[in-house]
């Protein structure tokens, strides 16, 4: 008997199967779950156990490994396999609470850091495209700092307030550094000669993707219920990397990345006819020997390039040439754009002891963009420290600091200060290089030379003299302490801060359009701060053997401050001196102040029965100062519950062997929101005329405030399943949800005879339903090391306006004749209306008998919905030994949008589609209405080709320039090679890999201009549906080198 219990000694080392690195802190237990010890810094352990004891080695993220030892061992190496089953997957949920995924009754998608850095772009959030079912990115595409708006599960809110909550290490940044800020008066449709809006990006862009450990996407309000009112549109939880004690000693990683970007899709510009109108027989720059001037027009309906000689512009003298020169096309308009370059270099240090771990990283990014003289520099520093002070107290802190500085960001949109406006207006018969010397001879610094129409500005002047500067510092961080009173009771206390300070300036030279004949200098100082403190008290109790309850109670106090001070000197004494002291007139000031507080209490009750049934109940109460009035605070608080259930069928039923895992989940949630725009519950006069009137003049507000404002309420039901088959080689995750949002806080447009433009009301109800599917599979995995993994996502969403007072509401007007977004009961959020063709009963276009032009409807017609009906993606990864290749395609289907660039290019005869009929005449495909009301095939030949195309695709015919935004994109590809551990060791490193990648490689789409996935800057929002002189979208190629020592 004694011999049977004889002790043996086991010594060995635990390494990760994935990287061969030692694993520190592996817990070693026997079959009675008695702790036998843990591994040390080098992953080594030494235990004494009775013979034939079964020992379990477990570590988070790895498969537990069980071994039985009969004899002593002294030099054992155990490789722990990376966990692949859902059972052990730990995900970050609301408030940063880590949970086992199997216990969740709602959908969470986790994107790992490396998926974000495989093919990096200027805005790291681009990398979320195609990886998360139900996620929609609305991109501004407006320059190197271009911001994105993230919408989860469609739009359920009638106002623009439908973005996901962005949380970085527990710090909500939406209303602070993550807030997009527009300058007053700047509009993407900016033909009033004011400044064009530059996209200054937001703090969300500035997050360094190299520092991101994972992104948890909480898609529904059920998942985000604990975030309270701000989580009504789902949440994106970003967790930055921490130090790990797994590595031996100090880990140093160098990551170097070079990316080149250039335009990937261009309009079909014609180079057969030059400047002129009506098929003119000659050309003359200014009036000359050949006749009156034909150079004032922006149209290219002039003479055909037939080897003629005309008097043309001479860039040297900036006047008409003295001799006739050949009439030739210059097919180099697209060459105006340069190759953008981005260099990213980062160093990270990480390591720790068994008590303290830390990670520190520094990243430098240098960017030049595709338009001349634009780009930015970014430096980020991140620090993460975690320390176990003693067995009960743990303190952690994460701090991220970023400085992003740009000497010039391009102005976006359609207006005389915009590059893309010039792109539309430039002539096929003129060389863009003629514009390089942009000052008028002898008037350097005072007058800008542009040879043709006075509408567009010289693009080189815009690039080098119309400067939009930005210097932004953001600091986000938290300090957190957790105290474990007992094994079952713990308290977490955390303070977090999100602080941003940005200085912007817009410099305009003399002659910068008719509103700024003597230049302009404008500055904005923007300070944002959101500070919050919260606590979580957690108690876990096991009843009997199978029943476990975890009760968590928490509370938070939040204070948000946002100040923006703008000063304008819209006339300068001396050209080129950009200081407020150089102002020729009084300085106009545009102060903006906003402040609100939200206090909250919340609770979470998680119960589990055995290992197959999990129930979560939450409740939260918010007190939101936004809803208070100067006289009362009784309607500021509101509360809302959620419940979710997870049922693991595979744990209780005997399922067929091919099913490894089957989980079904359901949730119900209500979320209230009181909005985060303060000062709308009491009457305030507005400062008139930017404060320039004597005596502090005022206007009545155009928005009538509402002292009885109530929070809106979103109710959502969700059902889902997570199924895995064939040894986890194939997995499905499906979700269906429906719900509605009512009592929306709307700015209702009213008849101005009330004295107001809008009144603030609680109105409307929008239902929202959708389906999401994610499939993960490993079609091939061979012993030789070849592995093919694949993932597929699909999501669709429908929203319907159920109630809307008694009227239809115009939400947004497109620029000029482009149509408008109108919501009506029974309609959807993105319904686009505009004038279109008059059509015969059989659908044929009706032509005007007299002119031969297409006839345009008198009333607006439905043109389609601007929100795509579904999105889908397919990603594949192939690994073979040291090689890895992946490729991602994604697609969207079912949306439409109106293109302003297209209608303008058509009106000016710049597209190849305006060539047919020049000048032999054209008969449009359609019918003519006879006097008796019947129709006959169109037989009217028109020689007014300009007017003909205008009737089809010009300003009045919104339908003619409305196109489907469907696309398939080759979104990402990457090939990398990782050096073998043996070779790496020889070189004295821990790891090394090199990769090449591409992003947005190809686009297949019926959209005529650049990129169907565009958004237009509209104040602080980015809107879909109306393309307004967008920039080219870019294709990125890069090389990436990672070295760890």
């Amino acid at each position, binding site marked *: 008997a004694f011999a049977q219990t004889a002790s043996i000694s086991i010594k060995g080392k635990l390494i990760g199967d994935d990287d061969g690195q030692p694993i520190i802190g592996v817990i070693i237990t026997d079959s009675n779950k008695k702790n036998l010890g843990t591994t040390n810094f080098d992953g080594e352990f030494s235990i004494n156990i009775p013979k034939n004891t079964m020992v379990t080695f477990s570590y988070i993220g790895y498969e537990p490994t069980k071994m039985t030892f009969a004899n002593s061992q002294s030099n054992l190496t155990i490789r722990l396999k990376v966990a692949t089953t859902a059972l052990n997957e730990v995900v970050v949920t609301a408030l940063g609470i880590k949970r086992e995924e199997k216990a969740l009754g709602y959908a969470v998608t986790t994107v790992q850091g490396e998926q974000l850095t495989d093919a990096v772009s200027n805005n790291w959030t681009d990398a979320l495209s195609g990886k998360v079912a139900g996620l929609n990115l609305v991109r501004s595409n407006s320059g190197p700092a271009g911001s994105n708006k993230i919408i989860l599960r469609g739009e359920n809110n009638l106002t623009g307030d439908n973005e996901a909550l962005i949380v970085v290490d527990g710090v909500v940044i939406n209303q602070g550094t993550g807030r997009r800020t527009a300058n007053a008066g700047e509009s993407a449709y900016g033909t009033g000669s004011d400044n064009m809006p530059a996209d200054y990006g937001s703090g969300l862009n500035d997050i360094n993707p190299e520092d991101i450990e994972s992104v948890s996407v909480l898609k529904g309000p059920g998942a985000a219920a604990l975030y309270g009112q701000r989580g009504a549109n789902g949440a994106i939880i970003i967790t930055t990397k921490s130090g790990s004690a797994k590595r031996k000693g100090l880990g140093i990683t160098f990551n170097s990345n070079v990316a080149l970007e250039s335009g990937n899709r261009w309009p079909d510009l014609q180079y057969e006819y030059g400047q002129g109108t009506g098929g003119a027989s000659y050309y003359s720059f200014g009036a000359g020997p050949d006749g009156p001037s034909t150079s004032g027009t922006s149209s290219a309906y002039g003479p055909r390039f037939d080897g003629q000689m005309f008097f043309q512009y001479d860039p040297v003298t900036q006047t008409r040439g003295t001799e006739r020169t050949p009439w030739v096309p210059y097919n180099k308009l697209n060459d105006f754009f340069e190759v953008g370059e981005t260099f990213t270099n980062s160093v990270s240090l990480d390591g720790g002891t068994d008590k303290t771990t830390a990670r520190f990283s520094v990243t430098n990014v240098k960017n030049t963009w595709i338009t001349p003289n634009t780009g930015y520099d970014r430096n980020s520093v991140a620090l993460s420290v975690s320390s176990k002070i003693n067995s009960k107290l743990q303190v952690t802190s994460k701090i991220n600091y970023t400085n992003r500085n740009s000497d010039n960001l391009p102005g976006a949109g359609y207006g005389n200060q915009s590059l893309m406006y010039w792109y539309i207006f430039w002539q096929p018969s003129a060389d863009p290089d003629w514009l390089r010397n942009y000052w008028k001879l002898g008037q350097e610094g005072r007058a800008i030379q542009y040879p043709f129409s006075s509408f567009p500005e010289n693009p080189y002047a815009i690039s080098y003299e119309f400067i939009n500067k930005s210097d932004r510092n953001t600091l986000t961080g938290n300090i957190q302490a957790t105290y474990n009173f007992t094994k079952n009771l713990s308290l977490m206390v955390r303070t977090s801060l999100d602080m941003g300070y940005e200085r912007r300036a817009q410099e305009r030279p003399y002659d910068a359009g008719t509103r700024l004949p003597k230049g302009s200098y404008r500055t904005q100082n923007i300070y944002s701060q959101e500070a919050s403190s919260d606590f979580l008290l957690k108690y876990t109790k096991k009843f009997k053997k199978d029943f476990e309850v975890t009760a968590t109670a928490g509370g938070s106090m939040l204070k948000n401050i946002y100040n923006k001070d703008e000063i304008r000197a819209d006339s300068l004494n001396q050209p080129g001196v950009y200081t407020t002291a150089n102002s020729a007139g009084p300085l106009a000031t545009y102060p903006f102040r906003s402040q609100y507080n939200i206090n909250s209490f919340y609770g979470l009750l998680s119960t589990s029965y055995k290992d197959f049934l999990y129930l979560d109940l939450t409740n939260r109460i918010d007190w939101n100062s936004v809803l208070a009035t100067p006289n009362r605070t009784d309607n500021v608080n509101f509360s809302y519950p959620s419940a979710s259930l997870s049922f693991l069928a595979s744990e209780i039923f005997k399922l067929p062997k091919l099913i490894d895992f089957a989980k079904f989940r359901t949730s119900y949630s209500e979320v209230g929101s009181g909005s985060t725009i303060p000062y709308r519950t009491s009457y305030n006069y507005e400062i008139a005329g930017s404060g320039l009137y004597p005596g502090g003049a005022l206007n009545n507000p155009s928005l009538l405030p509402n002292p009885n404002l109530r929070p809106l309420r979103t109710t959502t039901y969700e059902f889902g399943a997570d199924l895995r088959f064939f040894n986890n080689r194939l997995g499905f995750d499906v979700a269906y949800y429906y719900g509605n949002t009512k009592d929306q806080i709307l700015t209702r447009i009213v008849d101005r005879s009330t004295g107001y433009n809008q009144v603030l009301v609680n109105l409307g109800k929008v239902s929202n339903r959708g389906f999401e599917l994610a499939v993960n599979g490993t079609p091939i995995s061979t012993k030789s090391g070849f592995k093919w993994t694949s993932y597929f996502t699909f999501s669709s969403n429908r929203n319907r306006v159920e109630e809307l007072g008694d009227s239809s509401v115009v939400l947004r007007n497109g620029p000029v004749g482009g149509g408008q977004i109108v919501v009506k009961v029974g309609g959807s959020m993105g319904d686009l209306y505009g004038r279109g063709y008059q059509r015969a009963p059989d659908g044929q276009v009706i032509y005007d008998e007299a002119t031969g032009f297409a006839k345009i409807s008198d009333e607006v017609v439905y043109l389609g919905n601007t929100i795509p009906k579904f999105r889908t993606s397919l990603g594949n990864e192939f690994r073979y030994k040291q090689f890895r290749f992946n490729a991602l395609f994604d697609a969207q289907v079912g949306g439409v949008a109106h293109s302003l660039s297209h209608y303008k290019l058509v009106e000016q005869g710049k597209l190849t589609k305006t060539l047919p009929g020049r000048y032999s005449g054209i008969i449009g495909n359609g019918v003519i209405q006879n006097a008796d009301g019947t129709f006959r095939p169109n037989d009217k030949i028109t020689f007014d080709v300009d007017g003909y195309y205008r009737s089809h695709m010009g300003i*009045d015919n919104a339908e003619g320039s409305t196109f489907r935004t469907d696309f398939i994109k080759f979104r990402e590809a990457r090939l990398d090679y990782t050096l073998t551990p043996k070779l790496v060791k020889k070189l004295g490193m821990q790891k090394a890999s090199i990769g090449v990648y591409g992003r947005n490689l190809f686009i297949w789409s019926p959209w005529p201009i650049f990129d169907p996935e565009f958004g237009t800057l509209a104040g602080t929002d980015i809107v879909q549906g109306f393309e307004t002189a967008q920039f080219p979208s870019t294709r990125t190629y890069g090389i990436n080198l990672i070295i760890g020592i």
Partner: protein
Amino acid sequence: ALPAQLLAPALVNTLTTNMVRNRNFNNELMQVTVNQSDAEAVVFRYEFRRNLSDYAWNNLYVQLNNFKDIYNLANSDSNIDKSYRGISLICQAWVFSILTDTYGDIPYSEALKGKELVFEPKFDQQKDVYLGLFQQLEEANTLLAGAPNILAGSDPVYQGNASRWRKFGNSLYLRLLLRLSGKAEVAQQCIDKIKDIVDVNPSNYPRIASNDESAILKWTGMGPFTSPYVLSVREQDWRAPSIGAFFIDHLRDWNDPRLDISTYGRNGVNRWGIAQGPNGFAGVKSGYVPGTGEPKQSYFYSSASVVSGFPAQNLQNDPLTGMIMNYAEQQFILAEAAAKGWINGSAEDFYKSGVLNSITLWVPTWSLSVDTYLINADMQFLPTDGLAEKMEKIHLQKYYALFLADNQQWFEYRRTGYPTLPKGPGLRNDGIMPARMTYPVYVESANPSNYKLAVAAQGPDEIFTQVWWQKP
């Protein structure tokens, strides 16, 4: 807020609206300019898009809210001020009259009550609007009698002079009374009131008595007092339209000093900043068939135009474009009333005074006698002239006096049919001058039931539906 804080921006914003509409609506209809576009829906061709209606409706009502608020703020326990109340009423009458003359029946008695949660105000019949405006002007006249001046800095029109506001109010009263003087059901009442103001009780109804007292917001070019034509119109757009043949031919044929470069011009440019076209001072005939337009002729110089090395004198940044109501207009009102025998005095004298002041407002140094000018122009009253000939002459001259004053040329043409505008072959709307602007389309959605009632009462919401005072 104090009443003084609201007045200046409300005046500037109202004038901005009026000036923009004057330029691209009134001037096109009344052949001051011809926007040479072959596109559909061109105003000069009596065809315009419905969304043209929104601008004036939206902006004027919002400014009315400010004007009305001045009255309320000056009528509170803490602040009783007769002057601001009187000025508020005059401004309300001025702006409401432009609205009703443009659209017909409009929200009036229930308008501007958003604060009282009236979001769908009823439309009042034009007659009731006018009778209400008359009451407001009577009240203003009473309030301003002997009222103290207001803060000069708050009043860019009269620099605080309350008695001048009173004079403007009574002159405006005459403008509105004359507008209804042909409408049978109220004609006698209006004619009697005109006589009361002009002949019976002139001391109780002081009126504008000189160009100096004209209601004009003179743009200084400083900050908010920069001309809206500079702030709201691009320089290249300002000089884009050609001047109409009707407008410029008379001035040229009359040898009008406002067109004269050599005597009354500056640096080669005449007082109205009109550039010569290929045919010298000539215009484009309005109302042409699409595609048959003549080449551009004379046009207005812009703020960026340079003539013989000097920035050209131009109306884009001229101080006098902030026209509300000038002395000359009032003289022409009296000329018409006298010609029709409603008031004492000589129609011819009022007519000559109107012509003289219309010119000297712009060219104070004009040295010619008005009689000589009229004889040279063949515009003098002749003994043989009947009422029709006098009306034609009065209104042709009044047309130039009303230049730049919101839509007044259009209103007067609709009322009288004068001046006789040539009609081009390309006109739509059966060649009949549009009688109104349609209501803004969004009002159909935002105020649906009252919109339907208004259309039922007034007639179809179309540009050919005559407003109440225009109907026989």
